């Protein structure tokens, strides 16, 4: 097919964009391959090749589950629930003021207070609750308290981040209207801001509680109480048939908590 010089030839993308795209993909592939070789440098492939046999071995030991062990799990389960709930409560209570200090439209000072609040949020968010638990067990000793505080510290960042984003998205005209009646700052928060963020607040809190249930099931691995403690002792004695029971209990708890959280969130929104 011939084209005259003045009719443009259709191309999928301009050649420059095309090039850029291919170069980008090339680097991504190259980087992945490089990382792969670096990562597997010390991998003993004999172990990997042996994995299916190991898997069937472990599978054989896991079944049948030792149902009798269930009786020893009620107390740890109750502890796990308490760690999650009380931890969420602590986290939420601290997160509320942090969120108001971090939101651009409610912070008392954008230059000084806001960066500090954001730093609190980032620190809390970057560190997994298991690491918080590791630290707290070392500091205040093993037990439920370490777990509760760990869950609380991790929740602050999560709740505060989502909450301050909700605060920043509110309808400012409602705030303006309440302010124009001569209301004080506390009254503006009470009448114009809280009604707008309340549904988001409940949603976020319940969502975090749901996540915390999952996380609190394993905190015991580092000594912070709950089901994880039982998991740790079963693993160290290679009692795989008990591990199965623990896994099933965890699975059931997670499913129930997810159902509750979905139910509550639908009710408040």
């Amino acid at each position, binding site marked *: 097919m011939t084209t005259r010089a003045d009719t443009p030839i259709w191309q999928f993308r301009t050649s420059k964009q095309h090039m850029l795209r291919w170069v980008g993909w090339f680097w991504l592939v190259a980087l992945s391959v490089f*990382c792969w070789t670096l*990562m597997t440098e010390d991998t003993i492939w004999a172990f990997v090749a042996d994995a299916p046999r190991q898997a069937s071995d472990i599978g054989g030991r896991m079944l049948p589950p030792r149902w009798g062990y269930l009786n020893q799990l009620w107390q740890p389960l109750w502890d796990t629930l308490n760690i999650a709930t009380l931890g969420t409560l602590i986290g939420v209570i601290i997160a509320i003021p942090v969120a108001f200090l971090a939101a651009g439209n409610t912070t008392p000072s954008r230059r000084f207070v806001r960066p500090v609040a954001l730093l609190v949020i*980032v620190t809390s968010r970057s560190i*997994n609750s298991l*690491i918080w638990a590791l630290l707290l067990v070392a500091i205040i*000793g093993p037990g439920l308290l370490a777990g509760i505080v760990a869950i609380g510290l991790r929740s602050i960042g999560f709740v505060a981040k989502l909450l301050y984003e909700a605060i920043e998205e509110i309808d400012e005209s409602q705030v303006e209207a309440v302010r124009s009646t001569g209301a004080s700052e506390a009254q503006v928060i009470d009448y114009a801001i809280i009604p707008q963020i309340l549904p988001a607040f409940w949603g976020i809190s319940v969502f975090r509680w749901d996540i915390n249930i999952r996380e609190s099931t*394993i905190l015991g691995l580092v000594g912070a109480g709950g089901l994880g403690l039982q998991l740790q002792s079963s693993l160290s004695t290679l009692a795989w048939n008990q591990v199965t029971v623990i896994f099933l209990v965890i*699975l059931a708890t*997670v499913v129930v908590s997810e159902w509750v959280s979905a139910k509550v969130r639908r009710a408040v929104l």
Partner: protein
Amino acid sequence: MTSEVTSSRTWKRPPVLLKDPRWRWTILLGSSVYLILAISSVEVDWFRVYEGLERGWRFIQGFLTPDFSSRWRDIQAGLIESLTMTLTSTVAGVLVSVPIGIGAARNLAPAPVYMLCRGIITVSRSFQEIIIAILLVAMFGFGPFAGFLTLTFASIGFLSKLLAEDIEDCDSAQIEAIRATGAGWWQVVNYAVQPQVMPRLIGLSLYRLDINFRESSVIGIVGAGGVGATLNTAIDRYEYDSAGAVLIIIIAIVLVVEYSSSYIRRWVQ
């Protein structure tokens, strides 16, 4: 008084959430009883906590004056494992998630495929990364390879679910239009679905990259490689200044990943 008072009435704010007073009281009473029980079940050894305060203070000092040098070799090895694990598992996760995500989209997949893919997603999402890591370490031995598999497995559930939801939310008119041209299934996916979900897929992958890095710093605690193992050792040896250094590096990398991924997402969309 501006206008004549026609009637003298009282007003009380109607209840916001639960209309039925019986429900309100039941829930209020129930939650207070729970709180009392839960708090009383937490046994706190206040003497141990008091002792721990001094250690906590040392940890804060260690965090403020981190020691990067004396354990640098360990930290470096852990970081390289974490970073390579993060990238390779995200890439592998995306590669596997795309077909599963398409298979789990109701508008594209036949019923049996849909059920199978949804099943895979549910299994992958139900278990904590840590629990999967425990199993995989038992099968594949210690080291980053087990960590890589853990993170890949967890990424699959996360990415496939969100991808499937995106595909189901696609504009069906565009799909119909392409189908009306006589296009086959592959062409429909290529021309109608891919352009709509591609920016979201890239966004989700970057988000998962962020999550995978955070998780990679934890699963080392159960032996699956990465900087978590370094951190665990440092805390066990009460070397709070080295632990502080590791935590600061984790926070910094999370920040960098978060900011650059939000930058790339804005650039892609």
